[in-house]
């Protein structure tokens, strides 16, 4: 088991003929992901190292039966690409594009809610998702993810930051702890998939026994997660929040990472999570060590 994706997930790459799409699409395939096609308007009929390219998502889905899409197109084209995938019947869309205007993002998200309620969007501005040994969609270096063990315990990871997601995978690998699924939800103001969505799935997933959550300053997603954890999550958790030393009023690289009007601070988020029974580390390594202790207790 894993959440959102598994060994049967068939993926198309929108933007496969571009630099990032090709690099990561091929890496995803090399990892074992079923990358069945690519989409670039005007390049239908070509192929990228054996992966057929189609003019539209609809063509690609018809020919390959793809149920997931990996979007690696520039910000200008990303919103249309997301909606095209949804209209073509793709149920799981991963968008790594960074730099999409917030107005477009809000509109696209609410269009999906209204017109395509069964579609899940992961991102934008996210590293993607990996279920180790089964499926890797996005930019994660698959070799740093520890395979889940049949006996468990295995850990689910959910994170707002790309590189901190890798850091979390790496910490678990150092400790020899298996990962069920690792989800990067992205650092933008309107993520398609929230912490709460992922926590609910991890709570349901029999292969996940504990959860690491990596948050950062800005917004209230971590506080909402804390509320949800208190009421619904019985699996043990550790967490880390980045940005304790971030100055107020500055966007810290991610469009969504900003402390404004005294709201969205790392301290407030850590307090909320602690109050929900989550063990909070002061750096990624500490969150990893805390998880190692949790896992030891589960064995």
């Amino acid at each position, binding site marked *: 088991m894993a959440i959102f994706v598994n060994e049967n997930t068939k993926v198309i790459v929108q933007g496969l003929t571009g*630099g*990032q799409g090709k690099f990561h699409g091929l890496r995803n395939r090399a990892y074992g992901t079923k990358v069945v096609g690519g989409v670039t308007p005007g390049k239908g009929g070509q192929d990228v190292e054996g992966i057929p390219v189609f003019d539209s998502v609809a063509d690609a889905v018809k020919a390959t039966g793809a149920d997931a899409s990996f979007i690696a197109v520039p*910000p*200008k084209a990303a919103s249309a690409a997301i909606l095209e995938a949804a209209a073509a019947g793709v149920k799981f869309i991963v968008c790594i594009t*960074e*730099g999409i*205007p*917030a*107005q*477009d993002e*809000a*509109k696209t*998200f*609410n*269009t999906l809610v*209204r017109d395509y309620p069964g579609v899940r969007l992961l991102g934008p501005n996210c*590293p993607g998702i990996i279920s180790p040994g089964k499926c890797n969609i996005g*930019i*994660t*270096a698959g070799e*740093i993810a520890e395979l889940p063990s049949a006996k468990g315990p295995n850990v689910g990871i959910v*994170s707002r*930051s*790309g*590189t*901190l*997601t*890798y*850091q979390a995978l*790496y910490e678990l690998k150092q400790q020899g702890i298996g990962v069920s699924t690792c989800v990067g939800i992205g*650092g933008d*103001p*309107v993520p398609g998939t929230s912490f709460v969505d992922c926590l609910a799935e991890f709570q349901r997933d029999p292969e996940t026994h504990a959860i690491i959550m*990596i948050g*950062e*300053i800005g*917004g*209230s*997603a971590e506080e*909402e997660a804390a509320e949800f954890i208190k009421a619904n999550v019985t699996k043990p958790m550790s967490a*880390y929040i*980045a*940005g*304790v*030393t*971030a*100055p107020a009023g*500055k*966007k*810290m*690289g*991610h*469009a*969504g*990472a900003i402390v404004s009007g005294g709201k969205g601070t*790392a301290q407030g988020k850590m307090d909320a999570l602690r109050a929900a029974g989550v063990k909070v580390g*002061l*750096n*990624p*390594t500490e969150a990893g060590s805390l998880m190692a202790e949790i896992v030891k207790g589960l064995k």
Partner: protein
Amino acid sequence: MDLFEYQGKQYFAKFGIPVSAGGAADTVDEAVKVADASKYPVVVKAQVQVGGRGKAGGIKLANNADEVRLHAGNILGMDIKGHVVKRLWVEHASDIAEEYYASFTLDRAAKKHLLMLSAQGGVDIEEVAAKDPDAIVKLHINPVEGLSEATAKKAATDAKIPAKALDGVAKILVSLYKCFTDGDCDLAEINPLILKPTGEVHALDAKVSLDNNAAYRHPEWDEYRATEELDEREQLARESDLQYIGLSGTVGIIANGAGLAMSTLDVVNQVGGSAANFLDIGGGANADQMAAALGVINFDKNVKSIFINIFGGITRGEEVAKGIVEALSRVDLRAPIVIRLDGTNAEEGREILAKAGIPESKLQSKPTMLEAARAAVAIANGK
């Protein structure tokens, strides 16, 4: 990007939001010229991006050219909470019957637009929220549906805005919403939104924050970028297209990914150091970007050590390594580098660094983030 009041008003005007007749002025003579054209009495306002201008003496009423001369002379060059006044906004003084508040933002929790409207304007809205929360009407707007004049009017009625101002306020709300959405604002705020004794409603102040991600479709924003208040380091970083925020510590930071960069600042702080900056070299960082990043860090005289923290996803280890080798050949770095390199193609990267023959006094490699932070802080603290 935050706009100055005068820019915000000019931006509002593009979307048909009524503002007072006036203009920007950089000198006393220009101020008088604008005042003469705007009709007396006028208000002379310091253009700084900080609250409390009025209390600091940065906003003055002038009845004639001599008074404009006096006030403009005093306000230009004035230091308001560390912001030196370089520009004035001079506008016709409005008669005020009532003051309201209106703003649009994105409510990230609801994933919808949020209108905040109050009949109690002209004061700090946070104070109103604390003292009398019911005085603020909050209305979520679905970005797909937008805001109609009828809905705006209902919100104004709910906010207890008097009948005589309802139509005027509703019209402005629709225009302000258009400014917020089509104008790609993170925030579009009018405080105060005034009702004149003559019955007209108009914006007496403008607070606008623009979404930098949308800059590609707003070539007109170039003029705003030109006036942004950046320190020299930030200016240099911008020229190289780097995500950089200047801080006051001694450990220069370069990391890939915003989260890791924030985390690097935190870890440096935890082991007893302080960061000189936030710098995210971003996704597809290559040799040129790394060289440019080191150039910006090297420009900062406070930097005593440089901590490069890379975990490869999109960024590939060998690219990072090539960048460092290249940068060291281009720039004579004043501070030594401590690097932690992991992730995609990290092995190849470490190999390139090892083969480059850089002395350990200039570059050391550490296996973990914590060890690298300790080493960088030890150098910075002179240990």
